[in-house]
């Protein structure tokens, strides 16, 4: 990963993030958030997490952002232009953010793990092919690894369905609850006449 690219992506992510926080118009905020997430997805990709990166774009930048935009449009929310800025929350927000960043930087700089880079922890795909358990049951993954490509989606899928099958069900239930919630909370009342 060339440093320059990393900084560029970080800049995109943080810059658009900053625009979300500061933007006066909800629509532009939503769009900035989408851009921010795209930058984030790129960062994911740079960390060899292709599947997550794609999901990030699909779910977040795609579905969720659309939902946001849709609601903003639906409710016809105006920009906050008319309203006066209140400084106390802004100052306190900035203060807390700065403090938090300082803390995180301190923790990161004192942490040994944070010194790791992709050069000292390279992915050893072919080696992994041998180490991965139940190889016989996972021929495609071992094959891919042997070929030197990272079968990211396959590996995630394997982890999800092998280890976290139950959790997947729970998340499904969660989504169902979400659906029910949306219905309950936003359905219009029938006219009181029977």
């Amino acid at each position, binding site marked *: 990963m060339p440093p320059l690219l990393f900084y560029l992506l970080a800049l995109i992510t943080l810059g658009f993030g900053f625009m979300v926080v500061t933007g006066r118009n909800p629509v532009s905020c939503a769009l900035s958030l989408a851009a921010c997430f795209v930058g984030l997805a790129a960062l994911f990709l740079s960390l060899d997490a292709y599947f997550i990166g794609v999901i990030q774009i699909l779910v977040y930048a795609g579905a969720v952002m659309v939902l946001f935009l849709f609601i903003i449009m639906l409710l016809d929310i105006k920009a906050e232009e008319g309203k006066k800025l209140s400084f106390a929350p802004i100052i306190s927000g900035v203060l807390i953010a700065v403090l938090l960043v300082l*803390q*995180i930087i*301190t*923790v990161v700089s*004192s*942490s*040994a*793990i*944070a010194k790791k880079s992709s050069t000292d922890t390279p992915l050893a795909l072919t080696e992994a092919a041998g180490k991965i358990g139940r190889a016989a049951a996972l021929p495609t993954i071992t094959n891919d690894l042997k070929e030197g490509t990272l079968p990211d989606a396959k590996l995630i899928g394997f982890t999800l369905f092998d*280890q*976290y*099958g*139950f*959790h997947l069900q*729970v*998340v499904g*239930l*969660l989504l*169902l*609850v*979400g659906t*029910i*919630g949306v219905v*309950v*909370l936003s*359905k219009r*009342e*029938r006219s009181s006449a029977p």
Partner: protein
Amino acid sequence: MSVFTIEAGLALLGLVLLLVEAFKPDISRRTLGLTAIAGTAFALVLLPFCGAPLPSFMQPWHQLDTLALFYKGFAIVITLLVLWLTLECAPYLTRFTVDGKLAEMFSLPLIVCSGMMWMASARDLVTVFVALELVTVSFYVLVAFARKSAFSLEAGVKYLILGALSTGILVYGIAWIYGATGTMSFEGIGKALANPATSKSTALFGAALILCGLGFKVAAAPFHMWVPDVYQGAPTPVTAFLSVGSKAAGFVVLTRALEAFLATGSIISTEVQAFLLVIGSLTVLLGSLPAMFQTSVKRLLAYSSISHAGYLLLALACSETARFELSSGGIVAFYLATYLPMTVLGFLGLGLMRANGLGEDIKDFTGLAKRNPTLALFMTISFASLAGLPLTAGFIGKLFVFLGLADHGYWGALSCAVIAAAAGFYYYFKTILAMYTTEGVETTALTLSTASKAVAGVLVLIILILGVYPKPLQKVLTASPAVVSAK
């Protein structure tokens, strides 16, 4: 039979109820409610027979020890009570729900119950997160359920924003603790933390964030500020559910997490323990002191709930209470078991007041002793127990906490707890006093259904029995030697 059957079964029952309501909209809410109650009761009956070992594929993330079983039972009981309370409060609640429907109020708690039961068994952070979110998201819906009431909606918004914020913090914390230890399972975390090579500041950072996130769920100061507003705004059954169920679920996770953080040889145990003491002391004070000025009983109970969370945190801080038969997790479980009947009784009283067209302020309780002496007596016992008067369940719990603190020589925290308990005398007794004041009150009788009387009576009985004969419960909590040991 495996306990998983019950968990899944309850969730399934919730879904079935939803479907029934969707396809047969004219079904009476009584039928729905009673079905849910019957299902839960059935689950409760089945629970003792669910000792069968889990299938091996579940073992990595699902454990079944005494504590887990206890909390599962706890979850079922509170769900049962909440369902029944919903049914009692239905005539009043339906005025604020869309089309006067309540179906989701019967099905969602079942799903929440499953979520809480899974939380009780969780062995790793992923499971915790997923189950916790299932519960939380369901609660978003439940809190805002009476959306025609401005209060309910406001409570929903506040809970939503702050809850999501705490979720963010929790996930961030999980990330860091994962970064520090390289694992998600509590056992692995405990092992890694016992390894001196683990980066201490990273682990501390992650642990702190996780504790903040969980602290929010259990209403620990300074993450408690949502509690009074949300409790007050939410429909009463939901408040009871939040105050007892959600808190208990938060504490079971906290107990598990702390087992990992405070595992033998853990590099961060001193800090975490000190943190718990500080937070616990702060919580009892911030719960008790503002409570003295409350005029709404519901809000009062919210503050009381914060204060009780403080005692529970202090109990957690007293790990290695070698001279007790109960571990600190066991004490927490015990305390919660005493907390359940008295709090539910309090909310039951509130619900009944509402059902009889009265408000939730202390002044609305004036003359209750004349209107319905039985209810007044029950409420008196409940509040006395909340205040921690001896011979009630509340005292034993407090006694354990005090003993633990004294045993460790945590005098500062003990003084805070004492001050808070003294303040507690004031605000609980204030309500009791109102109930027995008779001047200038019109005294229309207040009716109480036989079922309510029976349920309240049972709760009172539990309070009293636990107050003078806590031995059986302690036996339950110490039944298996495998209780909550992180080793």
